[in-house]
């Protein structure tokens, strides 16, 4: 089963490497991993998607907690949550095809963010399913290039954390290597 974890880490050099290395070392396959700033200075948040069973998920959570810069881990797989992926898709589109592509973009509530004589760049945000399906319908026109951010997720409403309040340690001055990156 696919599990989604929200992992709060101190924004310190090497922390992304530590988390990624843990998954490799313990033979878990990362489906996607995204990192970005949070509302708390010095703390970054990773969204990690992994395919593993329930026991694996519990063990992974325990391993994550053993990493010193990890402050809090939430398995939001079953919690009511919102998850989003963002994609930029460059499609070959001239003449007749261009109008058809623009109609599809409308249907999917995506946006055209760049236009050139030979191609269009489409930006879309949504669940992975929605983006997969948009890709499917665009493929016949010729997808030249595509990039996706991977999943970011957040629990809805007031989901109480199973952990004590996250503490930020002294020395978390926000200098680090995980400002905005994904794997």
């Amino acid at each position: 089963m696919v599990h989604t974890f929200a992992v709060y880490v101190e924004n310190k050099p090497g922390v992304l490497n530590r988390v990624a290395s843990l998954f490799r070392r313990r033979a878990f396959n990362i489906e996607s991993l995204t990192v970005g700033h949070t509302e708390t200075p010095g703390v970054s948040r990773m969204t990690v998607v992994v395919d593993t069973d329930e026991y694996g998920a519990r063990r992974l959570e325990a391993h994550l907690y053993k990493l010193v810069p990890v402050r809090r881990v939430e398995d939001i797989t079953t919690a009511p949550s919102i998850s989003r992926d963002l994609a930029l898709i460059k499609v070959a589109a001239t003449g007749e095809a261009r109008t058809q592509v623009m109609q599809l973009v409308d249907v999917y509530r995506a946006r055209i963010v760049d236009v050139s004589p030979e191609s269009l760049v489409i930006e879309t945000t949504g669940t992975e399913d929605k983006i997969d399906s948009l890709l499917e319908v665009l493929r016949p026109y010729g997808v030249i290039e595509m990039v996706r951010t991977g999943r970011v997720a957040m629990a809805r409403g007031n989901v109480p954390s199973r952990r004590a309040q996250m503490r930020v340690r002294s020395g978390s001055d926000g200098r680090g290597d995980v400002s905005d990156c994904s794997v």
Partner: protein
Amino acid sequence: MTLTGAQILWEALVREGVTDVFGYPGGAILPAYDAMLGYPIRHILVRHEQGATHMADGYARASGKVGVAIATSGPGATNMVTGIATAMMDSSPIVCITGQVGSKLIGSDAFQETDITGITLPITKHNYLVTRADDVAPAVREAFAVARSGRPGPVLVDITKDAQQGTCENVDWDAAEPHLTETYDDALPGDGTAAEAIEFINQAERPLILAGHGVMLSGAEREIAALAERGHMPIAVTLLGIGGVAASHPLNLGMMGMHGEAWVNHAIQEADLLIALGMRFDDRVTGNLKTYAPTARKIHVDIDRAELNKNVRVDVAIAKDLRTALQEWIPAVAQRDRGAWLARIDAIKGDAAVRDIQNLPDNGHLYAAHVINDLWRLTSGNAVVVSDVGQHQMWEAQYYKHDRSRSLITSGGLGTMGFALPAAIGAKVARPDAEVWVVVGDGGFQMTMAELATIAQENLDVNIAIINNGYLGMVRQWQEFFYEKRYAATPLLNPNFAKLAEAFGIRAATVTKRSDVAGAVEAARCQNRAALIDFQVEQEDSVYPMVPAGADLHKMIRRPSPIVETAAD
């Protein structure tokens, strides 16, 4: 007061209670070495940085304190890798300090630059790259806290040369207080409860306690004995659990697993409840997981939540400090008579005694088991024994009866040959009053024998028993059993170990007959300086019983019986 980073390092170590460090100097750590002279620290100069890490490890295991090793950048740091991995696998708290090239040079492939924090990332609990004098105190302080806390383990602090040389005006030692993520005192949903564990224990007819290294790490020696006595429940120990429960305790059945006692493995297979305490169901103790303890419910307590439900799925999983957990259970455990179950285990023992090498006719041949057994009697079981890896390690575990906690030090999880001699040095430095014996194979001894020079230079009273069988014996045994006796690369042509020792100024003897064992051991014991004995033992003896790797736990290869083969196999 203005201090250099190097001075802050030593000041921080002294504040952590460090009195002894094991190390080897070099360019990138030179500022630290220079500053060391101003602090009350005993530095033991090793002969190889691997030795320094094993010494720190032996020091930690013998004393329960954090061991410290120090080395230079590049090759000094990479030489530490084996010792760090060994400490990681066996949950031994050590702090390794390494020098690093100047911070401006990092990433440039400068002379003796190595990414040691990258290399040791998966084999440390945590590591630090310190590039400013200001960061030395907090890093060292946190390193010790991490090494000690929860499940102990190794931490590395890599300090650039400019951080050692740089200065800091007013070091605020209190601000450097570490803030670590809380340990698992708080239960999570899905965790087992004490009430469930107690209910299972009170219902069980055939319970068996499995005791591991965690018993000693959490200081639960008294509690585990109390639990066993109250519930009249037998105990089996892992290799690293030896000593956590006295071997002479009537409820202690002995060691489990690949070379465990036959009756212990059979008892595991017949039990209706396993109470696993501070052990981690390593493949060497479970054998085939599909047929492991098929009739038993299982309770597992470990401070490391990641160990729960890893190899064996359990009914009650509790992530907690073992001592705290047992203190909570004991008053609620019903006092019961489980004589029938103990009698059943006695019956399983059956012919074990006649297969025991101790009961084979003494034909004058020197067997390793005899040597160990004699050593145990002659030292009254009071020595700290540090064993290496191989057949002799298993015979030590089988025939030296350890009654005291932390009296056996051995590399279990990683199985690191070459561990024993340096680890024994660490143990002796930690506990100068203890009688320390190294039990080491002829192969493993040659991996780190350069540390004989450390023993000589530091004038340490460490006694060394080489169990010399002329083979990489444990590998030879596998070749005998599973590779049709094709002895590829296992016979050893050895130096004259006694002469070798004498070259280091260490008294030595060679023993080839059983009747000479006692004399040689007594001679070594009654002088307060190092001694080495080369015991030339039967070359092609094997360790029994043996559960072949991955086989069912109850399907052991037994020592051929001199009388009759029984149906028990």
